[in-house]
């Protein structure tokens, strides 16, 4: 039976439908998988930090790997004075990574394949970075729109371009994650459908292709979480150290 490959992205309600002032706040499969990933992350970090020893146990080593990875990444992209933002970036990375990875299990739901959720992440980062920029630099933050070393007659054009590129940051950030998840999962399901429709004689080729695609999707799930975190760090770097 070949079902629609887009069927997996449908959000449906679990339990009673609730609403406040006409806004639907029912519990959906999207919220269910978000809660599952949060619980997984919390248990992972609690187990890892429960018994801290100099010679670390298995889970503590995993914790330290994640911690060091993000810490190094922030140090390389922003610098040492970004330490206050470390918990936020770590949470963002681990949350997106867990949601992407859970989505790869069959019959599960990929929360990050909903554009509204990734857009919410992106707009929080965008507003946060803008606030940080204005708090650190005052009105001098507006100089981010004025590139240095440019002839004066080109400035009106370039300022407009810089403003547009600044405002399109949340859109590109959210659509990148959403489109990767959407395309990858659709492709996996389409190839899964080929296996069923070609049957036991011809189905081996798409099956092996499907295995390779799953490996690629695991790589992409990790990479997109990493890219999301790195780009947030780069935006933060723009706000903290005004280069141009």
């Amino acid at each position, binding site marked *: 039976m070949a079902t629609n490959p887009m069927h997996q992205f449908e959000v449906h309600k679990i339990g009673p439908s609730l609403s406040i002032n006409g806004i639907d706040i029912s519990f959906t499969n999207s919220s269910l998988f978000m809660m599952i990933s949060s619980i997984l992350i919390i248990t992972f970090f609690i187990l890892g930090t429960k018994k801290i020893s100099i010679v670390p146990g298995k889970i503590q080593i995993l914790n330290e790997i994640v911690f060091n990875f993000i810490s190094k*990444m922030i140090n390389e992209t922003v610098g040492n004075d970004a330490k206050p933002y470390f918990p936020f970036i770590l949470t963002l990375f681990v949350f997106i990574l867990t949601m992407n990875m859970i989505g790869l299990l069959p019959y599960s739901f990929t929360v990050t394949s909903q554009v509204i959720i990734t857009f919410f992440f992106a707009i929080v980062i965008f507003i946060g970075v803008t606030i940080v920029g204005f708090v650190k630099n005052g009105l001098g933050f507006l100089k981010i729109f004025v590139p240095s070393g440019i002839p004066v007659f080109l400035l009106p054009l370039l300022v407009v371009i810089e403003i547009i590129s600044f405002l399109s940051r949340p859109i590109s950030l959210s*659509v*990148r994650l*959403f*489109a*990767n998840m*959407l*395309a990858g999962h659709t492709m996996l399901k389409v190839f899964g459908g080929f296996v069923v429709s070609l049957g036991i004689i011809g189905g081996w080729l798409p099956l092996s292709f499907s295995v390779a695609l799953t490996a690629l999707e695991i790589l*992409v799930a990790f*990479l*997109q979480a*990493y*890219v999301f975190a*790195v780009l947030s760090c780069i935006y933060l770097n723009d706000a903290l150290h005004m280069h141009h």
Partner: protein
Amino acid sequence: MEVAAAKLIGAGLAAIALGGAGVGIGTIFGNYLSAAIRNPSAAQKQFPTLLLGFALAEATGLFALVIALLILFAF
């Protein structure tokens, strides 16, 4: 022309952008390989940058996919 046919043609045209994504990914990996062969000791340090570039280049192709899906299903 019928709207349904025009939609299909438009979605197909949107897939041309994949050529750009292919060129980008090829350039990134090709340049990384040639640089890594010249200086293998510095290769490992640039591996995260390679992956970042790969993900950024791949995402541009997926923007085209989103446009194709919008043309097909949203209009």
